[in-house]
């Protein structure tokens, strides 16, 4: 064995049911990782399990259901400390000397507080409402507001106009995913879905491709530390601007899109040379303090004539509540808090798996802090990072969010199977890749339809749950923590979440 010997065992074993396989080679065409190969001298298909990332594309598209992906059947050492994964990580680093790179949200078994929060329903003392037949409002506006509205009651007019607001027909948006980290087709699908649903997608930090400009009324433009693609036109084209301070999956570090993903289209959109690494600094180099955030917020407001709401996104970290309070005071119209289980195209594994806190706790703490300071009603609050289903949305809103953003869930609707190999650029589903042969597998219209279906289904479920609580407007769910009860939580967790225990 020498320094370069690969001691890492395969993670998966791909099994072909030879009796069922007709040799159609659909799997060979499916796999960009080279797991399935036609032997030169015969029509047999051979399998290289080591290359498999478990994206399940071949399984889904095998017309004969002849393929199965199993865990690599190696018995463990019996140690709870030196698990197969722990040892594989060490072996990789011993071999390469590299920082472990990972993708998507952490798979580590941290507590998921959503699953410890149960929802209420009306019985006897007040009625539940049937959303199929009675009005059930899911519309939400995002933006900052005055504490007191100045009106002329006789004229029925507002005396001082409101700051710019975004109208969401559903309290669900799509998280920032840049062109570069995902394909243009994936971005188009989100844009189409956002327009259809009356909500917003977020172009991420990589600029806005010209093909997305027709959907700009439903777009957040992101301004991150690298300022890729940021100019006055970009800022003024979008409906709103989001300053990205941090991302739940990788708080405290910048971004790094490798040069091989910077093809001509990505290059043009990011406004950097083709093939060059796109490096986002860890901090914004004009924000070293809270008052500097105010400077950037207002530089954007000046550049957009105060016509666009400015959101600021932070990763959920230990001091999130105080930070969010400061953000509200800097002039941020929308505070976005992204939990540590949120997804990413690429992040150092140790950062993804060890830095940050769950969004549930951060959200609850932020909402309460803003209320303690009497400023919650003047700013909007969006939660993201591991929203898995409609009940999570309801829980987040009851904890205090105005709306949620979904990233991974929307990608899963498009076909993503959470193999967590985005950083390789070989996404067989055409999502996290820039290879033309792969991106063309994702049809924007079809993918958009699946995303629209998902959000419509969630909305129907949200309406059912709200109706069950006797609530017919999402306004009355927001921050309504009495609609939640905890199970399996300790006193401290209940205290931070601001909920009673089930049975109380």
């Amino acid at each position, binding site marked *: 064995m020498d320094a370069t010997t690969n001691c890492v065992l395969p993670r998966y074993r791909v099994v072909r049911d030879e009796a069922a396989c007709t040799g159609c080679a659909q799997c060979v065409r499916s796999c960009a990782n080279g797991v399935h190969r036609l032997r030169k001298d015969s029509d047999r298909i051979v399998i290289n399990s080591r290359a498999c990332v478990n994206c399940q594309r071949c399984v889904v598209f095998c017309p004969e259901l002849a393929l199965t992906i199993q865990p690599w059947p190696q018995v463990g050492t019996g140690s709870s400390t030196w698990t197969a994964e722990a040892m594989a990580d060490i072996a*990789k*680093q011993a*071999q*390469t*000397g*590299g*920082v*472990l*790179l990972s993708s998507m949200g952490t798979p580590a078994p941290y507590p998921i507080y959503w699953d410890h929060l149960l929802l209420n329903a009306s019985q006897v003392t007040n009625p539940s409402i049937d959303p199929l037949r009675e009005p059930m409002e899911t519309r939400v506006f995002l933006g900052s507001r005055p504490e007191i509205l100045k009106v002329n009651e006789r004229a029925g007019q507002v005396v001082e106009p409101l700051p710019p607001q975004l109208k969401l027909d559903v309290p669900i948006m799509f998280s920032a995913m840049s062109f570069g980290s995902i394909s243009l087709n994936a971005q188009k699908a989100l844009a189409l879905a956002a327009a259809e649903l009356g909500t917003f997608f977020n172009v991420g930090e990589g600029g806005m491709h010209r093909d997305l400009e027709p959907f700009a009324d439903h777009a957040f433009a992101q301004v991150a*530390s*690298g*300022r*890729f693609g*940021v*100019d*006055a036109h970009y*800022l003024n084209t979008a409906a709103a601007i989001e300053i990205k301070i941090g991302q739940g999956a990788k708080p405290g570090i910048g971004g*790094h899109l*490798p*040069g091989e993903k910077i093809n001509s289209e990505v*290059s*043009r959109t990011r*406004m*950097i*040379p083709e*093939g*060059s*690494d*796109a*490096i986002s*600094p860890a901090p914004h*180099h*004009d924000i070293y303090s809270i008052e500097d955030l105010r*400077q950037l917020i*207002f*530089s954007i407001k*000046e*550049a957009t004539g105060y016509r666009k709401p400015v959101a600021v996104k932070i990763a959920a970290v230990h001091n999130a509540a105080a930070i969010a309070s400061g953000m509200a005071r800097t002039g941020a119209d929308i505070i976005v808090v992204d939990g540590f289980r949120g997804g990413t195209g690429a992040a*150092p594994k140790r950062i993804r798996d060890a830095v940050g806190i769950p969004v549930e706790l951060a959200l609850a703490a932020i909402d309460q802090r803003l209320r303690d300071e009497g400023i919650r009603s003047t700013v909007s609050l969006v939660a993201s990072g591991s929203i898995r289903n409609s009940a999570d949305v309801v829980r987040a809103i009851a904890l205090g969010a105005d709306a949620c953003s979904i990233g991974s869930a929307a990608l899963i609707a498009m076909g993503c199977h959470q193999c967590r190999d985005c*950083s*390789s650029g070989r996404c067989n589903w055409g999502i996290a890749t820039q290879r033309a042969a792969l991106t063309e597998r994702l049809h924007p219209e079809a993918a958009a339809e699946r995303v629209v279906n998902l959000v419509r289904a969630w909305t129907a479920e949200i309406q059912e749950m709200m109706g069950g609580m006797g609530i017919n407007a999402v306004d009355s769910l927001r921050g309504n923590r009495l609609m939640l009860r905890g199970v399996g939580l300790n006193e401290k967790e209940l205290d931070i979440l601001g909920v009673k225990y089930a049975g109380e």
Partner: protein
Amino acid sequence: MTDATVTLSAEETAAEAPTPAAEVTLGLAHFKEANEQVRAALARADAVTIREANAQRYLGCALPAGKSLDIFGTPGNDLGCYLDGGRIEVFGNGQDQVGNTMNNGAITIHGRVGDAAGYAMRGGTILVRDDCGWRAGIHMKEYEAKRPAIVIGGDAGAFLGEYMAGGIIVLAGTPGDYLGTGMHGGVIYLRHPLSTDRIMDGLIQEPVGEEDVPTLTALLDAYDEAFAGESPPLGGDLSSWHRLRPASARPYGGLYAH
């Protein structure tokens, strides 16, 4: 606040067509009102003179081509942010983040600038007569025909050209530490070459070559023209000039294990 006043000369107010010049006195006006006044003046005139600038931020924000500002006093941070082809000349010092994310145009500073001048700029030129603070030219980038440039007549603080992904920095004085750290594109021209131990990993320092002469000469000439009579000329003999460039556009290609 109503500290800002706009004055137009008699013939300017009488004219129907866009007038050639207007003047705005800012005094202690808050930036929001100050910028409104400046924009109002720019709507009437292509060239506006700003007097008594006092810390007002964002002056010349996204100023388009064909418009110009002459600024007297001390403007605030983010002067010329998102500058979009306009021309800004400051007769005094600039504060921090001059030309932040500027896209095109020209900023000339008859004095020094603070930290992070030219942050993320992707086009246009910033000429600084004297010194600059830390992290000037940080994350400058270039794209197709757009190639931004910063010329600094004096000394530079540390981290000049950090993360630089494109464009040109010309430094006539002495640099601070960590010059060009993380640089993966563009070029830094130095009148005083670095000792070998001060060259950051992944960077190459070499004497300027024939191919550099037109670019460098043009920038030095621009400096000399802008600051004629104020600062000793930089142009002429290029023999001591060196260039610093990245060895790779992929400085961190080997950092990760998948």
